[in-house]
């Protein structure tokens, strides 16, 4: 095109999905503008690292701006763990969370996952886990006839096509794994690869924790499935690649990889910018899309601001292009579309199905932890946060009755469960027992005695003994799609730019909860088989945001950081928001991309699959722009 300011595509959101589409179209010579709501990609990650080091609570969001808990005063507020801890207070929590329902605990729970609004998006603190879906994951309705998985929940895409797309996504991300090591999953859960396929880089070595669990579950089976440990395909370098170093095992993938051995979307964004055909504009918050009378999107309205906190006077502008892509993640995408309502589209844009914002899902996370027997350290707090998992329980006939799950093995001791090493160090200095590792009258003590208070070499030895035997597992449970789990716009609460904030309705059905119970059962069975002592205890966790009771027991669930389902894809426009290319059924020049397009979520961490789908979208957009 002659005028460089005439864009073929405007992409909203500079994360991995928007980045891949920009890169692919930039390579085709298309002119692309990316509007990113948040801060630019910093010249180096040192400032983010300093934020992390100095944060008392090293939460996923801790390295990233802004660091306030004032959603009404921020230009780009987002859900955070600190916000979640204040979920009942909408003055501190960006998401307007449900009012708890005391009559039935698993309903009206807070949505517990978070995301970032900065250049590079939430991949700044993704774990790097790059698991593929298996073929049965695409057909929960037609094959498993699982309760809650009605018509409209089968994926409108053949697995053979997805397989090809996975290859592209694994190349872009740079996934380290060995097909040979994944091979036992073919018989167990139906995972296959095209003949001769190899991952871009060799596998990441397993940790000593992985090896201990692997030995412990040898020969074990559960729910009619074999139980075994598989090294996890990971978006982190096992060899120098793409001008990035090999992983040095910083044990910090979340909140931030200090050396960018782990892929993040800034890699793809920079490649997109290097095509010379892609522009990115930061601190540009899209407020709404405008549609003409035929339903074609005619422009994007956005606000630019200078200050994150108390932005003050701002500028509102519009930009037009031939096509539009919403890649702002699964809560911001529906937020923008719902905020685009007009007399012609009273329910918002892309919402003739009434599915927009519905079916909000996560991988419900069940966390458990245990201690190896005395004298058998596994030396945690070393290596990437996770290097292996138990994937063999991700599929099986039980899925017609209850949710499946995967089990992620953690290499960071009890950091996630109890905030160690802080809790245990404090316990052995103070003589307290928050960790449960410093009980009154420890086992083997002949006389009643208080919890230990230690210093000097005694303290070193006690801490070394306890901390080197810690490990944990996290089960990521497949949540079923529920129409009432949804994102709407709060009628009154606004952000610092005056935009309505997302209002959440969220809870679990029996299918999901029974999967949660099976996850608990499996975790305990594995600890027992290993001879490890389980310390999981939620009986005193009433004040935690994810606390609930089910079948007379106390539980806490966590968010996996996987926000999905709010603009699901399908072949039937009456039941879905986008088609298999993530193109809106209602607006022919609009694509809505990301994990919001997943009609069901199965068990794998979603980034690899949403990246694969972004390649499909880029191809479909490229074709549409050439016609």
């Amino acid at each position, binding site marked *: 095109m002659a005028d460089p300011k005439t864009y073929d595509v405007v992409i909203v959101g500079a994360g991995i999905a928007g980045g891949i589409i920009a890169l692919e179209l930039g390579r085709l010579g298309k002119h692309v503008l990316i509007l990113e709501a948040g801060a630019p990609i910093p010249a180096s990650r040192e400032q983010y690292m300093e934020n992390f080091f100095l944060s008392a609570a090293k939460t996923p969001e801790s390295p990233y701006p802004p660091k306030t808990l004032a959603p009404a005063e921020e230009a780009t507020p987002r859900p955070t763990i600190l916000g979640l801890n204040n979920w009942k207070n909408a003055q501190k929590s960006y998401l307007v969370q449900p009012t708890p329902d005391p009559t039935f605990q698993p309903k009206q729970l807070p949505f517990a996952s978070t995301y970032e609004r900065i250049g590079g998006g939430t991949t700044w603190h993704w774990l790097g886990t790059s698991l593929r879906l298996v073929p049965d994951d695409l057909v929960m309705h037609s094959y498993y006839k699982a309760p809650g998985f009605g018509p409209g929940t089968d994926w409108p895409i053949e697995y053979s096509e997805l397989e090809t797309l996975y290859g592209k996504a694994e190349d872009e991300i740079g996934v380290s794994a060995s097909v040979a090591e994944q091979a036992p999953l073919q018989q167990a859960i139906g995972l296959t690869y095209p003949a001769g396929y190899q991952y871009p880089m060799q596998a990441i070595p397993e940790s*000593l924790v992985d090896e201990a669990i692997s030995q412990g579950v040898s020969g074990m089976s559960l729910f009619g499935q074999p139980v075994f440990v598989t090294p996890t395909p990971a978006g982190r370098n096992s060899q120098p690649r793409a001008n990035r170093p090999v992983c040095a095992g910083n044990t910090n993938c979340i909140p931030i990889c*200090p050396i960018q051995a782990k892929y993040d979307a800034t890699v793809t964004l920079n490649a997109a910018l290097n095509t010379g055909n892609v522009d990115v504009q930061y601190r540009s918050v899209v407020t709404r899309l405008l549609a003409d009378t035929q339903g074609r999107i005619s422009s994007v309205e956005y606000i630019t601001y200078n200050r994150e906190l108390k932005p003050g006077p701002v500028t509102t502008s519009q930009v037009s292009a031939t096509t539009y892509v919403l890649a702002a993640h699964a809560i911001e995408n529906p937020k923008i579309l719902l905020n685009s309502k007009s007399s012609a589209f009273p329910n918002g844009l892309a919402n003739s199905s009434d599915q927009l914002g519905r079916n909000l899902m996560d991988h419900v996370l069940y966390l458990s932890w245990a201690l190896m027997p005395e004298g058998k350290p596994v*030396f945690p707090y070393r290596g990437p946060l996770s290097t292996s998992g138990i994937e063999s329980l991700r599929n099986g006939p039980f899925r017609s009755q209850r949710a499946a799950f995967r089990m992620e093995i953690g290499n960071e001791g009890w950091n996630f469960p109890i905030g160690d090493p802080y809790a245990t160090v404090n316990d052995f200095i103070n003589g307290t027992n928050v960790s449960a590792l410093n009980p009154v009258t420890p086992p083997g003590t002949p006389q009643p005695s208080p919890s230990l208070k230690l210093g000097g070499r005694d303290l070193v030895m006690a801490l070394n003994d306890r*901390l080197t035997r810690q490990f944990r597992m996290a089960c990521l449970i497949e949540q079923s799609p529920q129409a009432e789990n949804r994102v709407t716009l709060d009628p009154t609460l606004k952000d610092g730019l005056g935009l309505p904030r997302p209002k959440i309705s969220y809870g679990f059905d029996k299918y999901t909860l029974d999967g949660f119970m099976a996850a608990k059962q499996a975790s305990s069975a594995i600890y027992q088989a290993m001879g490890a002592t389980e310390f999981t205890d939620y009986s005193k966790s009433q004040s935690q945001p994810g606390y609930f009771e089910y079948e007379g027991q106390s539980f806490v669930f966590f968010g996996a950081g996987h926000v999905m389902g709010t603009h699901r894809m399908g072949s039937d426009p009456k039941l879905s928001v986008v088609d298999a290319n993530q193109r809106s059924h209602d607006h022919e020049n609009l694509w809505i991309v990301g994990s919001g397009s997943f009609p069901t979520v199965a068990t794998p961490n979603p980034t690899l699959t949403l990246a694969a789908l972004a390649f499909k979208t880029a191809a479909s957009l490229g074709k549409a722009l050439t016609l």
Partner: protein
Amino acid sequence: MSNSPTPSTRMDQFVALSSVLTGFTQDTLAPQLDPTDPPLKKLYLEAADKSSTQTVDALLAAFANLSGQPAQTIANTLLEVDSTNPTANALMARSILKLWYLGSWYAPTSLIATDGTVVAMNAYIGGLAWSAMQAHPMGYSELKFGYWNSAPPPLSGVLPPSEANHG
């Protein structure tokens, strides 16, 4: 290290005290050529003084009076490990101990693990808790790819030799 002659400066006394409280060698806490700027010993003495110079002085005096005793005995005495009603000196000693282990300042009255304030970037990185578990600070590894597949080097490298009379 506890048997070394009475240190000359207040800072030297603080480092000697810190070594006894933590169980780590003085050279681990405050190397001759300290790569950390400002040195942790300086940051930590300042943090303790900010809380109460008077208590720090009292603690250093109590430490000097115990000179010649085994390190573990001195640590147990100053930390009052058998007391259910610790003195201000003991609470200060515990705060200093937490500083070295976690790089965070905890008010002497605090019993809550999440109450700490990170004193400096290098304080987090220099936390002894990571060494005590034969690991590295989360977010700061100087190790090589794949190290996590083997057991770490033994703990003995960072500790003073065990004392013969220590049970």
